[in-house]
């Protein structure tokens, strides 16, 4: 176990115009679990493969522990990698798959068996040891894949999209297992994923990447609640954050042109807006309250879509090209065509510069609501009672 440091790590493929990974700086503490999160092609897998030594480094440094590993052979870096497509050795039994690395490093058979049995117990794959990979289900393959990465007790454990090929039920199950396993074993772990839920659930910190560049590196809640820019805001959250362009005709109002959308803003917010005439407004569906009664600052609209999804209802109101979705407690009340009012929770407003996409911020706003299990305040949504 060790810390992992990436310093201005860059990868340029010869044919490509722009770098696959661009000046990436990242420090992973000993025992920390971080996620590289981003859409496909954002450079997250390339980063992971550079750390593993499967991809050469164009410039920059990779340090594991305090050792520079740029030019080290993959087998000498002390990393374990769980491949996205499992990459198990098809002709070998599970046991031999797990023992491959230990044998290559010349461990005694007795020690190999002990280690294999131990990791098999941890990942609950004891009864699979004498099977070949093709006989395994995808969930089992993934467990073996992880076991193979962990059996060598790596300094850094690398997980490449470990859950992406599993069905929903297995995904949730294995996600919990990984989280628990990390809590117990505290491997320094880097997970690559495009699934923001996975990143949020598992990681101590999330590094959001796009087009080879690091967008934000922070704790899940911070990334979720205070996205550094429009990209991060749009990428995290399901259903996605409503992000749309508004103009500021005069102080104190945000407007979608040619529609009924007129949002009154407080001086505090106006201060962030400054003298801009245009900006991107982002608000998560849970930050909007829907009602049939007008209150101060409510935006009128007509219901376009209603989705009843069991534990929640989603109501969509259209303003020209913009469909604003809100998520509210289950209710039978709303039907398309109904006139309603949308109340925007000020704390949940995210303002982005329309050209750079950067978050407008004075450094302090808004405060992060933090609570613990003893009591909770700031409930965005009233508890559902039936």
């Amino acid at each position, binding site marked *: 176990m060790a810390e992992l440091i990436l310093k201005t790590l860059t990868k340029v493929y010869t044919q490509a115009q722009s770098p696959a990974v661009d000046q990436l700086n990242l420090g992973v503490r000993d025992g920390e679990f971080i996620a590289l999160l981003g859409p496909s092609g954002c450079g997250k897998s390339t980063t992971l493969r550079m750390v593993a*030594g*499967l*991809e*050469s480094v164009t410039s920059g440094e990779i340090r594991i522990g305090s050792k520079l590993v740029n030019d080290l*052979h*993959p087998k000498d870096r002390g990393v374990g990698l769980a491949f996205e497509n499992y990459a198990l050795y098809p002709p070998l039994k599970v046991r031999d798959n797990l023992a491959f690395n230990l044998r290559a490093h010349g461990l005694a058979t007795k020690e190999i068996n002990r280690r294999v049995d131990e990791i098999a117990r941890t990942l609950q794959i004891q009864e699979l040891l004498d099977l070949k990979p093709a006989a395994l289900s995808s969930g089992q393959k993934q467990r073996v894949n992880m076991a193979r990465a962990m059996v060598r007790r790596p300094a850094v454990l690398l997980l490449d999209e470990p859950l992406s090929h599993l069905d929903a039920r297995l995904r949730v199950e294995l996600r919990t297992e990984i989280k628990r396993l990390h809590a117990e074993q505290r491997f320094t772990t880097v997970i690559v994923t495009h699934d923001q839920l996975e990143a949020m659930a598992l990681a101590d910190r999330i590094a959001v990447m796009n087009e080879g560049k690091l967008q934000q590196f922070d704790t899940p809640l911070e990334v979720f609640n205070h996205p550094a820019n429009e990209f991060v805001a749009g990428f995290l959250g399901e259903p996605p954050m409503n992000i749309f362009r508004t103009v500021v005709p005069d102080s104190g109002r945000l407007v979608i042109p040619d529609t009924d959308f007129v949002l009154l803003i407080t001086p505090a917010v106006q201060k962030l807006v400054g003298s801009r005439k245009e900006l991107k407004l982002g608000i998560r569906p849970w930050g909007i309250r829907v009602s049939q009664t007008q209150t101060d600052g409510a935006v009128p609209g007509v219901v376009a879509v209603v989705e009843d999804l069991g534990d929640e209802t989603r109501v969509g109101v259209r303003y020209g090209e913009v469909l604003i979705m809100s998520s509210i407690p289950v209710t039978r009340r709303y039907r398309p065509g109904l006139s309603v009012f949308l109340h925007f929770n000020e704390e949940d407003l995210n303002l982005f510069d329309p050209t750079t996409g950067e978050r407008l911020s004075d450094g302090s706003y808004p405060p992060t609501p933090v609570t613990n299990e003893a009591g909770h305040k700031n409930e965005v949504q009233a508890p559902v009672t039936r």
Partner: protein
Amino acid sequence: MTHSRSPLAKIGKGLQILLLLAYAVFALFPLLWMFIMSIKPDSQMLTTTFIFTPTLENYATVLHSDYMQFFFNNLIVSVAAVLVSLVVGVPAAYALARFQFKGKEDIAFTILSFRFAPEILVILPLYLIYQRLGLYDTYFGLIWVYQLITLPLLIWILRGFFEDISPDIEAAAQLDGYAWWQVFLRVLLPLVKPGLVAAGLLCFIFAWNSFTFPLLLSNNVQTSTVIALRYLASDTVHYGQVAAAAAISALPEVILALLIQKHLVRGLSFGAVKG
């Protein structure tokens, strides 16, 4: 991979290239030699190896001889054989790829097995029948028997190409209001066109190369492959002309081979290995 910087790895790399070059010499030198001979005048044939006065005389002689007649015979028979195979084989390949029916695999294997029956075994009875039916020494007779070479190959290659097309596309076109044969003509055929071209060319090459069939089932209507060999057996050997004849016969194939390189693996293995 990125990790081969040790001296041992460098030696290995050098050895690898050396061995490859050795094989390249073995594989290519004979062809080069054929070309050298073909541009060597008869007078210098026995006295020189690499240094001589190049000439196109051998080619001129061959091109003005009756060899060209045999060259065109070969062309006619091979092209016609491929065309017949295409007309008959494309629907068959489609049926074997898509439809589910009784005896499907048996039919497919029967067709394939023709390719692997000893040619002499086929020729012996055909020789008699061809003479009875007046097919001996005719274009038609050769075109028909060439089907043994071209048809199994074409059907098995194209079957793979048809199988590569998602069945959804076919279903979509049917739902769009087209009968199954219209779907076949308007949607599927354009999609397998690359495969069609590759398979057709490969069939042509094999038909062109055929030796045993024209040797034994034809006499005056002869192909260049057979005739080239006879040149060498004749009493007054003009080696340069033999080499030129061989080069002329080999040239179309070398060009075609380069064209279909991408699909060659599939073709050579009857679809067993997808390259």
